[in-house]
């Protein structure tokens, strides 16, 4: 019996995907903020890629300066609410909380952060102001966390910003790729709107920048370009049967799920390939969509999984089962998917090898590939002098400038696919470099 019933309407969907991080009430916020030791040279601040002054914002909560607390967060991180909800705090700020060193539960920094940002967001208290106009224009390709962070920082310096967004809605993977129980669509959009109504950057929707002509136009009209383009669709595995209708890429199915919710037609027996955090999300979400069985299949051992332990735990708690050391060989079925043929694997001489004759079959009616995304190679090819590394990641210098000095880049397209908070940090950092370059400060 599955853990979750198939959601048949919006309400049932919301129940199955109810938020795992609930907004604190004032009593809890006071108690939790009282716990913070106000460490010197605080490890949590160091662990945060955006270096939020965490002890300060927590102390501001404790003394009842809520707007000040939000300002502290946003001064370092333009997506403070988003990050409070979706950051893997267990391995970042909360993981480095000194309480952990004595076996005491860490201060709940993520939830306190959401508590702090809630007031300014919900009451639309403006805390930012645009900089004085400097007659410079920057194009940002991609309206995800990196692009939005970059745009905000540029606007603060008075630089005009146009964001070219390929989809009909911005916020990138924050809106389209994150599990709904981590953050709701409206929360993502609330923060995006909050930034836009103060910084007034333009977002040009449905404009996917790809061709030589697109690139030439941008280069002509703008003083600099920031590439916050993230990654492309799920890469092919190149195994037989992969082209069947019921075989999905993880990022694609998660995006559909976030948009269609209970209207999405979903499988009953789902197999997910992969061992990263996206695989865990896809598996968890499949279980919450009411699939009877969800099987996670990873070609290496449990210890080798890229996913954080708490993400795996979350998937397990939703009823997901896992197979380790198995690789898919073929996706079976005539018209529809009926199963997956696997082969067992082992490590020999430090290399992953399949074990001859160990093939076996698992039945299923849906397959999700969470085995990595491709890059936007067509765009890369059309930008002169832009260079990428072996893994297809854009090469940048320490100032997030690409080999083409007019182009800067940050986020997944540069780091290969890290956390939202890394994208936010890199977008802001790149903006500082752009500001320096354009205004010669």
């Amino acid at each position, binding site marked *: 019996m599955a853990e979750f019933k198939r959601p048949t309407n919006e309400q049932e969907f919301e129940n199955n995907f109810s938020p795992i991080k609930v907004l604190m009430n004032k009593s809890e916020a006071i108690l939790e903020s009282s716990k913070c030791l106000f460490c010197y*040279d605080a490890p949590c601040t160091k662990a945060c890629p955006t270096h939020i002054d965490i002890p300060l914002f927590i102390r501001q909560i404790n003394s009842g300066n809520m707007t000040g607390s939000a300002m502290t967060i946003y001064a370092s991180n333009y997506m403070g609410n988003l990050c409070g909800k979706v950051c893997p705090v267990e391995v970042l700020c909360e993981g480095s909380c000194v309480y952990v060193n*004595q076996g005491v539960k860490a201060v709940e920094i993520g939830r306190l952060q959401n508590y702090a940002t809630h007031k300014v967001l919900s009451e639309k208290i403006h805390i930012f102001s645009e900089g004085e106009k400097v007659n410079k224009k920057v194009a940002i390709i991609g309206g995800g966390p990196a692009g939005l962070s970059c745009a905000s920082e540029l606007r603060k310096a008075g630089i005009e910003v146009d964001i070219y967004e390929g989809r009909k809605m911005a916020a990138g993977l924050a809106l389209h790729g994150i599990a709904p129980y981590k953050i709701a669509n409206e929360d993502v959009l609330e923060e995006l709107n909050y930034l836009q109504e103060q910084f007034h950057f333009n977002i040009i929707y449905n404009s996917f920048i790809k061709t030589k002509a697109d690139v030439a136009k941008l280069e002509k009209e703008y003083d600099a370009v920031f590439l916050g383009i993230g990654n492309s669709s799920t890469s092919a595995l190149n195994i037989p049967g992969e082209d069947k209708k019921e075989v999905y890429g993880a990022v694609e199915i998660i995006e559909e799920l976030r948009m269609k919710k209970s209207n999405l037609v979903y499988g009953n027996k789902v197999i997910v390939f992969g061992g990263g955090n996206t695989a865990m999300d896809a598996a968890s979400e499949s279980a919450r969509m009411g699939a009877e069985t969800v099987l996670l299949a990873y070609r290496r051992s449990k210890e080798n999984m890229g996913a954080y332990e708490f993400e795996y735990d979350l998937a397990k708690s939703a009823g997901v089962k896992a197979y380790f050391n198995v690789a898919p060989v073929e996706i079976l079925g005539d018209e529809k998917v009926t199963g997956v043929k696997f082969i067992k694997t082992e490590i020999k001489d430090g290399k992953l090898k399949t074990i001859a004759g160990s093939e076996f079959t698992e039945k299923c009616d849906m397959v999700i590939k969470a085995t990595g995304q491709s890059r936007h190679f067509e765009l890369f090819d059309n930008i002169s002098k832009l260079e990428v590394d072996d893994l297809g990641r854009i090469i940048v210098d320490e100032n997030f400038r690409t080999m083409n000095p007019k182009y800067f880049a940050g986020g997944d397209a540069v780091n290969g696919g890290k956390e939202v908070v890394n994208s936010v940090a890199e977008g802001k950092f790149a903006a500082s470099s752009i500001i320096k370059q354009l205004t010669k400060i």
Partner: protein
Amino acid sequence: MSAKSSKNKLASNLAGIKSPNPFWLASAPPTNSGYQIMKAFDAGWGGAVWKTMGVPVVNTSSRYGAVSYKGNRMSGFNNIELISDRTLADNLREIEEVKKYFPDNAVVGSLMVQSKEEWHQIIKDVENAGVDGIELNFGCPHGMCERGMGSAVGQDPEVLALITSWVMEVAKVPVIVKLSPNVSHIQDPAIAAKKGGANAVSLINTIQSIIGVDIDNFVPYPTVDGKSTNGGYCGPAVKPIALNMVKNVAKIPDYNLPISGIGGIENWRDAVEFILMGATNVQVCTAVMHYGFGIIREMVSGLEQYMSDKGFNSIDEMVGKALPNVQKWENLNLKYKIIAEIEESKCIGCQLCYIACEDGAHQAIKLSENGESRIPKIIEENCVGCNLCSLVCPVESCISMVRKDNGKEELTWTERTERGDIPTTFNDKMAGGLGHFVPEPKKAIEYRLSSKK
């Protein structure tokens, strides 16, 4: 009663007022009625001082305020409530009833009136009702003092002695004088109480206070229709002040009056501290207003356990036991030397000891130079043994203060003065801090000066 098994050991006797244990309820809202006091005795309280009876009063709506320190509610508490606003007849009738059900528990009548005649009359009234003792409220610092009572009496030793002597003219039961802490020298009213003939003193009453200010509406708490007034402060926050005052009274040479200790007591440990500082019993109010009468269970069991651990067979053996160790500063051993030691295996790396010492004390703790470890190090030659690091450290017994002198030498300021061995001029070479390392002022902004270049 619940304290039966240990009755003998915990038995208390304050100037002849006996109770099964030394825990009394102080005169306050929890002792406003016979109902409450019977409930308290049933729960295990040894005695109760009835909420002050006397001149008729009316009370305001909104009466209490509290300090909530980092989520800890009622760390400090204040009130602008007056004495009992119930009729004397009701109070007397209920005293009689309580004594009928609980003959072994102490019921003390707290009183506050003005004229000699009134004092004589009310003493007869409460004695007829069956009180085991009388407490004179010379401490209330709000509302009553403006009418020449409460702390107005407590602050004037001559008046205090006079009124006490009126009381002693007629009182047949033991009389306790409750002292106000709102004085510069607590010994003066304490001596006056003795002069007036009192059998015991109790202290401290509340400390005059403004508990906090409503910064949106520009008025202190508690607010009565947009206005406020000073109140009386009590609760855990006042305990150190109360302990010191109890000690000061207990140290009066040949004083010999028993002391009932009051001020922020909420568990057995607090009670033991008061007893060791010279109190014969203790009175509790705020903790009961916070948690109810049930806290007595923890207090009685804790005191019993402590006494058996330490081999005390009666409360009397403990009274004032720490007093000989309270000395004037000039009699402390200047040869005694401790320094801080960090147990690295326990350190969690918060670095609070570092910044506390660096910014708030003596710059005797350093961070690891390469930044590899978050565990700070003590600079032994700079450590003056002040304790600050061990006080701010959030880990139990991670930082300890270790003795470094040979333990054989003793030299006090008094002895040095006698020898003529003390610094006397402003720039004297014998000044204590001369050997201590202090960085140059400019070092504080070095990072800024260097980044400018």
